[in-house]
């Protein structure tokens, strides 16, 4: 098995989950209603738990401890897509990001249940089950707010147009794309993207939102190669503030 290809895949997935989990957790105490504080916290816990599980697989492949990997790297060593690191903004952006991202993730983990690398295939079954609730949550809210008031529709429309080019960055290809597909580790970003588009269309078509023509959209790339926005490093500095008081201490 091509270990470099496998690790690259695991790192980007784990980093995505960690960073978006962190962003979701920032809603605690600030949600538009208590039920949404609680929902975003649940999703944050799932995502951070999933990132820990993925870092643990990496650790078993010879990488460092999950805490060290998550809390001590610099932004340019992270492989998350840019969509996950953008600030929460208003609820409409957080919701649309959650919808676009989790729609992709549930398909990704569904594909990974067939992975030739058993530890990932086994984990994917569990993660897929958790993500069902995330997509149920996202779809329910997008359908509701995307068909309700003038303000809610226009806010969601604006956020949708803003987030889509970043969302296309989820599928930025790995240098090992061919190997991953050939060895049956993962079915590849292109296949994932096509399925994702269909699913996004299916939900948006049930609302009063308009999906721009895919052909007009330019993906915003770079995250998978460690090229990030100005938002990631401050997030990481905050995340590791206590840990770095003494990285050798036990907390």
């Amino acid at each position, binding site marked *: 098995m091509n270990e470099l290809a496998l690790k690259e895949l695991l790192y980007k997935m784990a980093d995505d989950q960690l960073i978006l989990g962190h962003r979701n957790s920032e809603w605690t105490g*600030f949600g538009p209603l208590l039920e949404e504080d609680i929902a975003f916290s649940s999703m944050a816990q799932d995502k951070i738990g999933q990132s820990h599980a993925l870092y643990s697989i990496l650790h078993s492949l010879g990488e460092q401890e999950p805490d060290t990997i998550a809390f001590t790297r610099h932004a340019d060593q992270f492989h998350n897509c840019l969509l996950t690191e953008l600030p929460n903004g208003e609820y409409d952006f957080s919701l649309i990001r959650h919808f676009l991202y989790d729609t992709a993730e549930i398909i990704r983990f569904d594909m990974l249940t067939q992975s030739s690398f058993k530890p990932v295939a086994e984990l994917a079954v569990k993660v897929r089950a958790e993500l069902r609730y995330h997509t149920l949550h996202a779809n329910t809210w997008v359908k509701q707010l995307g*068909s309700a008031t003038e303000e809610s529709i226009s806010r969601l429309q604006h956020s949708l147009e803003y987030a889509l080019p970043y969302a296309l960055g989820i599928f930025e290809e790995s240098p090992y794309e061919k190997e991953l597909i050939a060895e049956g580790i993962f079915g590849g970003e292109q296949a994932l993207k096509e399925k994702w588009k269909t699913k996004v269309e299916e939900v948006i078509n049930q609302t009063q939102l308009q999906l721009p023509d895919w052909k007009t959209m330019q993906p915003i790339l770079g995250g998978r190669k460690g090229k990030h926005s100005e938002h990631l490093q401050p997030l990481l500095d905050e995340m590791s503030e206590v840990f770095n008081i003494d990285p050798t201490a036990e907390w």
Partner: protein
Amino acid sequence: MYGGGNTFEGIKTDSLAQEDPIKLAEFEARIERGEKIEPTDWMPQLYRKQLIRMIEQHAHSEIIGALPEGTWITRAPGFKRKLSLMAKVQDEVGHGQLLYSAAETLGKSREEMINDLISGKSKYSNIFNYPAFTWADSCFISWLVDAGAIVNQLANAKGSYGPYCRALDRICAEESFHLKYGHHCVIYLATGTKKQREMFQEALNRWWAPMMHFFGPSDKISAHTEVLMKWKVKMSSNDDMRNQFLDMYVPKIWELGFTIPDPNLKKNTETGRWEYTEPDWEEFKRVINGDGPCNKERLEVRRIAEERGRWVREALKAPKATYVTPLA
């Protein structure tokens, strides 16, 4: 989490004059027999009013209490602490949700309660008007503020109003996990590096006075609440709860090698009661009336969250929106 003290107004002697004496006697007999009062049962206006006040303050304390700890979620050191703290603070918000529902059964809507919180008309536990400067402060809250809350809530769970008691049973079960989490965090600080021990000692120095205030003014100066004790609205006196807390937790703090910043703190072996320097009740009053280090900030955060979320709540009410059946 929630502190019990200072939640009641003084009772006016004529507040029960309007009530039907036969119904009042039946009501009191039911409570005397240990029965629970349910939302549609007859109850004196004063009982309803004081319960709304108490449950509402409790609910506010949960959501405001989520703020000082919540700021440490994004900074918690390591996966284990990060995941635990997220779950803990989520529980607190969930307690708020549960308690607003319990208070709503008495006739005040969640929206009215939140508006009263933001306008400053209703109060919340005073301790959350103090800042959590370091990770060790958040550990103090998780362990000792939650411990204080459990003392209060276990007592109140034996009260007379059914919906509140049932909410408290569930809340206490969750709080007991918070206590374990908080204690675990503090043990790691106590047995860690010199820096870690110093962090917790400093947190203890900062939080001891607010912790003593947590249970409310001394019985000597508290409003008279005999009728509320008889109706099982208030279940224990402020001093009794404070004493119980000291009895349970001072030995544990000392065991970890920390110094409590009160030279007069000791247990009187003859009376079995703890003796301590009288807390500064003027400071307590000043803070609860709005002049604490974080009062403005806490309410401002809540106000902004409400403002920013208004369009979402409006959109849920929109007539042309389709109803989605809730999962539970």
